[in-house]
């Protein structure tokens, strides 16, 4: 059964801390892995990863994919209260262009 598992489910940190969010997957015909940030309504796209070992970086956020071990991590350094959100991981499969979403990691950054 194809699935995406995120951990931890919930995380509370202080401003300035660094956090690592995990996403592991078992998806047949992997095409890409996507990270989203969801604050209020619609998720906001963060990264799309297709190749192993290549880090993608955007400001304080970075992500990397390991296609051998079937996981990805999302790092956030020097966290700010504005980083508080649910972070969703989704894997797109070639078969049927299907998306498999994880249940998300709820991150709360306290001042």
């Amino acid at each position, binding site marked *: 059964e194809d699935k995406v598992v995120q951990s931890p489910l919930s995380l509370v940190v202080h401003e300035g801390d660094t956090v690592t969010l995990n996403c592991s997957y078992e998806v047949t015909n992997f095409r890409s892995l996507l990270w989203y940030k969801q604050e209020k*309504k*619609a*998720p906001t796209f963060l990264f799309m990863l297709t190749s192993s070992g290549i880090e993608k970086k955007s400001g304080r956020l970075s992500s990397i994919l390991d296609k051998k071990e079937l996981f990805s991590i999302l790092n956030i350094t020097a966290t700010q209260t504005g980083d508080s959100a649910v972070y*969703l991981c989704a894997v797109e499969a070639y078969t*049927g*262009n*299907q*998306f498999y*979403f994880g249940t998300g990691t*709820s991150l709360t950054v306290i001042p």
Partner: protein
Amino acid sequence: AAGVIQSPRHLIKEKRETATLKCYPIPRHDTVYWYQQGPGQDPQFLISFYEKMQSDKGSIPDRFSAQQFSDYHSELNMSSLELGDSALYFCASSLNNEQFFGPGTRLTVL
């Protein structure tokens, strides 16, 4: 565990046709959300329902309508389809604000 089910998975329509997308939430979830994700774009919130009543409305065109039925499944009806409606349509369900996303329906308008 049961997940959110969407049907159909793929749909190809011509301009000016109509389309109906269906979403079956996780059992006991009372809220359904619809999103539209165009190629290379962020998902856009369209509309949501709580206990069979519309609870919030986003950037849903007037050509689209949606409802949630007594069994909590929801349908998104799209009329007078345009080329720009080609997108992935995600449905998510929730019980206590945590959203669980379905696999999406890919709509292609020719």
